[in-house]
């Protein structure tokens, strides 16, 4: 198992995908207008759907279907995560398993600190990843 920190450069991601059997990718996400994948937690259930929901966790099985560009294209790289996944799919370079966790951010301001909501979401995602990893080990072992 390798743990890699990536700047989100799409071409680099495609390279990683093509060399792995299972990949879990965690990224900051924009507020998604619609629910994407499995939403594990919406930070405040009482806010309207138009409000930001920092700390919301989206879990997407990227092998099963297309990744929504709107959720993960807010990086400073035009060719980011969602595009990289779809290009890899078109080139037949997706790994057997690719799970993406998108954590909705509170702010993308330069020099800002991680918010409490995102901090809490990070803890939760760590637990979910533990579960994913066990599943991945089992399913690709054959």
């Amino acid at each position: 198992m390798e743990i890699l920190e990536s700047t989100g450069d799409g071409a680099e991601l495609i390279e990683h995908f093509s060399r792995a059997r299972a990949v879990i990718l965690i990224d900051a996400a924009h507020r998604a207008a619609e629910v994407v994948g499995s939403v594990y937690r919406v930070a405040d259930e009482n806010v309207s759907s138009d409000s930001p929901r920092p700390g919301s966790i989206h879990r997407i099985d990227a092998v099963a279907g297309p990744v929504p560009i709107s959720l993960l294209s807010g990086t400073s790289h035009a060719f980011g995560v969602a595009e990289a996944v779809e290009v890899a799919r078109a080139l037949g370079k997706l790994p057997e398993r690719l799970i993406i966790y998108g954590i909705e951010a509170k702010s993308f301001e330069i020099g800002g600190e991680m918010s409490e909501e995102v901090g809490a979401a990070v803890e939760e995602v760590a637990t979910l990843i533990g579960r994913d990893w066990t599943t991945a080990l089992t399913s690709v072992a054959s």
Partner: protein
Amino acid sequence: MTQATANEKKITVDYLARVEGEGALNIVIRDGELREVEFNIFEPPRFFEAFMRGRSYTEAPDITARICGICPVAYQMSSVHAMEDVLGATVGGQLRELRRLLYCGEWIESHILHVYMLHAPDFLGYQDAIQIAADHPDAVNMALALKRIGNEIVSTLGGREIHPINVKVGGFYRAPSKKEFRPLREELNWALEAAQKAVVWTATLPFPDFERDYEFVSLRHPDEYPFNEGRLVSSKGLDIPINEYEEHFTEEHVGRTNALQSHLNGRPYFVGPLARYNNNFDKLSPIAQDAAQAAGLGATCTNPFKSIIVRAVESLEAVHEAIRIIDQYEEPDMPAVEMEVKAGRGYGCTEAPRGTLYHSYELDDNGLIVDAKIVPPTSQNQRIIEDDLREFIKPRIDLPVDELTLQCEQAVRNYDPCISCATHFLKLNIDRG
């Protein structure tokens, strides 16, 4: 077309796709006439300029490298040259060659990504890189492999693929051994062929008929195609040492949105690969000159859409230069030149993939940064992009909204704008009633 009443059309795109960061374009067409074009995507890196005050000169390369996700080497190079200028140091010999090699890597990775994944889709009528991968898998696979070699040059020498950690004022923390370059040198043989194919491939794309009389600004050096050193020249007679930059180049706030635009003695100007090419064709290697000419380019080119061919030519030049540097490389005695700390002001101007990147710093007696000024290439190109759009839209004013939007986006992408330090979210609005 005439209408009895004022008739405005509005085209809105929430973000300008396939440029670094986010973009904004406002176009007003009223009663069949182009009324307003406002292009504002760029905020200067003021946060970083302020952040560096009080920090040691040694920190500048690492801090500024974070301004741009895709051209950190450029920021490191401009900052180390500026600091060395303050401290009166010269970095020559193999260290100078290694710096050029590092830049070769960055040009290759940046240019090839832009050519195939960001710009080519426009020429072929695709929405995005995904469609081009589906229809042209061989070309995209070749591009990704070539880009990866650019990344590998940067990681072999820089210690990490994206933000190199090996660069310092005076040189490097560690110089590689000759042996470390061997795997890369093997791959560069393939890369040379791939880059040649890239030039051939880009030349087959359909180009809009669009030429303008530009003032091209770049470095020029007597002995080489420019990366880190030279004088600042233009295609209309400018020829100055870089420490006179601020006497000729000014930034002004213009328009309703208070966009910052750069001018050369009051005139708009153009930086980037096309500018370098026009000012330095004679300094390209024969292999790059031949490829450019076979692709239908002369020694000068004033169609900004053909910048896509020029990026491929520069990638070829960078591969060729990387091979030359590695073949002559001997490990230097010291990985860096010693610095003597003193107060003063210094200037650095190097050729980022997107054009000239200017840094200026003032240091105190302890080598702490008192003041910093950074002018990225994309901010310098804002005015010329806006002017291009004005000319480009006029004959296309009656096009359907969607088609016009796509073509405007393609025109903006001629400049491969890098706006990762944009500090606010901006919109594309074509106001057509």
